[in-house]
């Protein structure tokens, strides 16, 4: 097994693979609706973003 991140030490954000981050930021987190300027529930954020990613990524991708 390879460990991407050490358990006792949070790695700087730039070392986190973007794709792992987007799994969480686009499918996780508290979703609140109501008086939002943009109601995320109205937009299929995951679909849009994956389309953007796939269109932009050519070959192996790691975060900068």
């Amino acid at each position, binding site marked *: *097994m*390879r*460990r*991407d*991140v050490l*358990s006792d030490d*949070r790695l700087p*954000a*730039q070392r*986190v*693979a*973007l*794709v*792992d*981050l*987007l*799994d*969480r*930021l*686009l*499918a*996780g*987190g*508290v*979703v*609140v*609706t*109501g*008086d*939002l*300027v*943009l109601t*995320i*529930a109205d*937009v299929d*954020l995951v679909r*849009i*973003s*994956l*389309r*953007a*990613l*796939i*269109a*932009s*990524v050519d*070959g*192996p*991708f*790691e*975060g*900068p």
Partner: protein
Amino acid sequence: MSDSGTYLYAVASESVPVDVPGVAGTPVRTLTRGALVAYVSTVPLAEFGEEPLRHSLEDLDWLAETARAHHRVVEEAARVPVAPVRLVTVYADDDQVHELLDRRGEEFLAVLFHVTGRREWGVKAYAGQAAGPAATPVNGGDPGRPGTSYLSRRRESLRGREQARRLAVTRAEHIHASLSRLAVASRRHRAQDPRLSGHDEWMLLNGAYLVDVGRDEEFAALVGSLGGDGVDVRLTGPWAPYSFTVLEPG
């Protein structure tokens, strides 16, 4: 209508200093209401309004930069239990965030209680070469009838592939079930597209697990023991509890 909005990153019950810039380089501040603290930034609606966002979200550079800025703030705030909010949650003004904390305070407190003393770990499992179908069929077919031989080889190969697929799915379920027993909560994210992950191997499992802090090492050891036999298992984390703070919209 105002030309700025309030971007919400996370909600906690204890405030810690956040010294990193927020999205679009904006300073991060806190709003306090009752027992809850919200981490927010004032953002220009020219960039974070509904229409601009629809376009920006299709722009990988913008998305990456915004996701990383959001994550940096959450990581800073996550030195104490925190409920991260989904990317690009923008309110018209601070009052609306106050109103949110008033209206859904009980739910936020319940979520924060659930993640206290626990951390999220990511586990990804990939099927390597060894788990794939056999390169050559076991049965060579009838040498006297090349057409039949080809078809039988083809059938054999498809059967092999289907069998390998079934085995891999079963293996992923076993890994997920084993990890879920040790975790307080678990969740499966959709498998990552190989074009994004940079892994050619087939992703069997993209799991998230909420684990008691005292059991981190035990969890890591279990993850290690579940790999092998052609399955590559990778651990990421600890993460702020992104995958375990989903409130129902309301």
